[in-house]
């Protein structure tokens, strides 16, 4: 039975209390969490070292300004943190970070992870126009009841990986009806137990309520199926792809925000991928016409092959797309089918190797001819 920490305060307050405790006792030297910038829904990930600065921290805010996995990777890219830092992140952000560490783009050393069962996040647009604040009570009502909040990022609506795999502590949110009165934090390992020693609260032997989780899982599953079926009908074949990606303006925003697209020198941004006059001539001779600039589908399919095996389905790509291409569902759907082939869940376990950099001697003989 895993241990749990019960704090008799609202869940948000409880976490803040815990973070403050960690900073004050010197158990961690920094906290990485979402922090309010203004009152109209603007939040940003921040590193906080002074306990007082936690007053504007909103660790459970249903928004993902940037995938925290990407941010933590930048934080630890040139070397691991010298001091212990507690990071409050969403499950998919944690998984993204684990993938990045596997890709040698960050380090887990000196980092502690606090995650939660995740209800999902709202699209960035709602933070931009301030409507997110009005929706917060609705969001938490749905989470309390174990329902899927409306108007979420579409990737979140059908996300089945709402429970963190490798967090040191998991905050109980989904289906917890007394969120406003009580904070329940599951301590998943020794690190979590060590850190929380001395916190004002009650320590229990308690595991996460599986029934609650399973019920929510079923809801998410059926929502996912709906989303996948919709996209399946749209993306079939070249005509479907041309229609769906035809709107792409080539801003490469999706790859810029994608935690898995980590290459600093991207093939698609390099001058190598620019067409020479002779390329245009050849293409035009063949086709009798050409979209300018060419290579939209090449970019999207290329990204698909590069990313899918590690795609955590966070939905950041779709969220920044200025022309609303349903990227996250396409990537999630294709990603899941490729990942299934390798029995791989990105970010599930740091010890699991990324399928494309490992192999078995006897496998996939059906693709040989």
């Amino acid at each position, binding site marked *: 039975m895993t241990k749990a920490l019960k704090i008799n305060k609202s869940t948000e307050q409880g976490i803040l209390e815990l973070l403050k405790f960690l900073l004050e006792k010197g158990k961690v030297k920094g906290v990485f969490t979402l922090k309010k910038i203004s009152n109209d829904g603007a939040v940003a990930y921040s590193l906080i070292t002074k306990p007082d600065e936690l007053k504007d921290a909103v660790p459970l805010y249903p928004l993902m300004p940037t995938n925290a996995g990407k941010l933590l990777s930048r934080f630890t890219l040139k070397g691991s943190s010298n001091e212990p830092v507690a990071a409050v992140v969403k499950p998919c952000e944690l998984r993204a970070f684990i993938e990045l560490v596997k890709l040698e783009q960050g380090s887990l050393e000196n980092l502690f992870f606090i995650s939660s069962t995740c209800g999902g996040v709202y699209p960035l647009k709602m933070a931009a126009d301030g409507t997110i604040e009005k929706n917060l009570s609705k969001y938490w009502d749905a989470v309390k009841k174990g329902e899927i909040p409306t108007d979420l990022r579409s990737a979140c609506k059908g996300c089945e990986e709402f429970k963190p795999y490798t967090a040191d502590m998991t905050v109980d949110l989904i289906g917890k009806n007394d969120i406003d009165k009580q904070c329940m934090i599951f301590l998943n390992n020794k690190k979590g137990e060590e850190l929380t020693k001395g916190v004002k609260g009650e320590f229990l032997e308690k595991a996460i309520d599986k029934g609650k989780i399973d019920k929510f899982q079923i809801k998410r599953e059926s929502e996912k199926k709906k989303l996948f079926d919709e996209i399946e009908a749209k993306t079939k074949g*070249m005509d479907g792809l041309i229609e769906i990606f035809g709107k792409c303006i080539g801003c490469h925003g999706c790859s810029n925000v994608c935690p898995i697209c980590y290459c600093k020198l991207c093939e698609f941004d390099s001058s190598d991928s620019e067409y020479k006059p002779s390329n245009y001539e050849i293409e035009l001779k063949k*086709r009798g*016409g050409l*979209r300018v600039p060419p290579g939209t589908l090449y970019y999207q399919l290329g990204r698909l092959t590069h990313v899918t095996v590690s795609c955590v389905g966070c939905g950041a790509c779709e969220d920044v797309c200025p022309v609303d291409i349903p990227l996250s569902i396409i990537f999630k759907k*294709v990603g899941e089918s490729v990942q299934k082939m*390798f029995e791989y869940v990105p970010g599930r376990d740091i010890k699991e190797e990324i399928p494309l950099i490992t*192999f078995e001697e006897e496998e996939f003989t059906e*693709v040989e*001819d």
Partner: protein
Amino acid sequence: MKKDEEFMPKILAFLCNWCSYAGADLAGTSRLKYPPSILPIRVMCSSRVDPLFVIKAYLGGADGVLVAGCHPGDCHYQKGNYYTRRRFASLQKIFEDIGLESERFRLSWISASEGPRYAKVATEFTEKIKKLGKNSVKNEIFL
């Protein structure tokens, strides 16, 4: 091409330097007959073939793409072809998922001594592509 002329596909072949390219060479020096549909590109190892190469070829209108390397266990670099196989499997899966013609791609192991096998693969694959017909992507303007 005249209408009654038979369709001769264009197949891009990525051949590994150590096995398949030598195999192709042997097919040539042995004067084996195979269709003139293959356009070979020599790569140092089949694992050098980024899925992007295959996609680029497909979108560029290649009727087929062949990736060939040493037999498993015989890779000049010990394990390159194992990676190729995984990559190829995932690429095929992706193409199936989005409803593109994954059957236009082929992965084959051809060793340096297998001239006849090279000729056979080339002939077989050409026949298969002939049945599939032209790659219609060739005529797409939006890409």
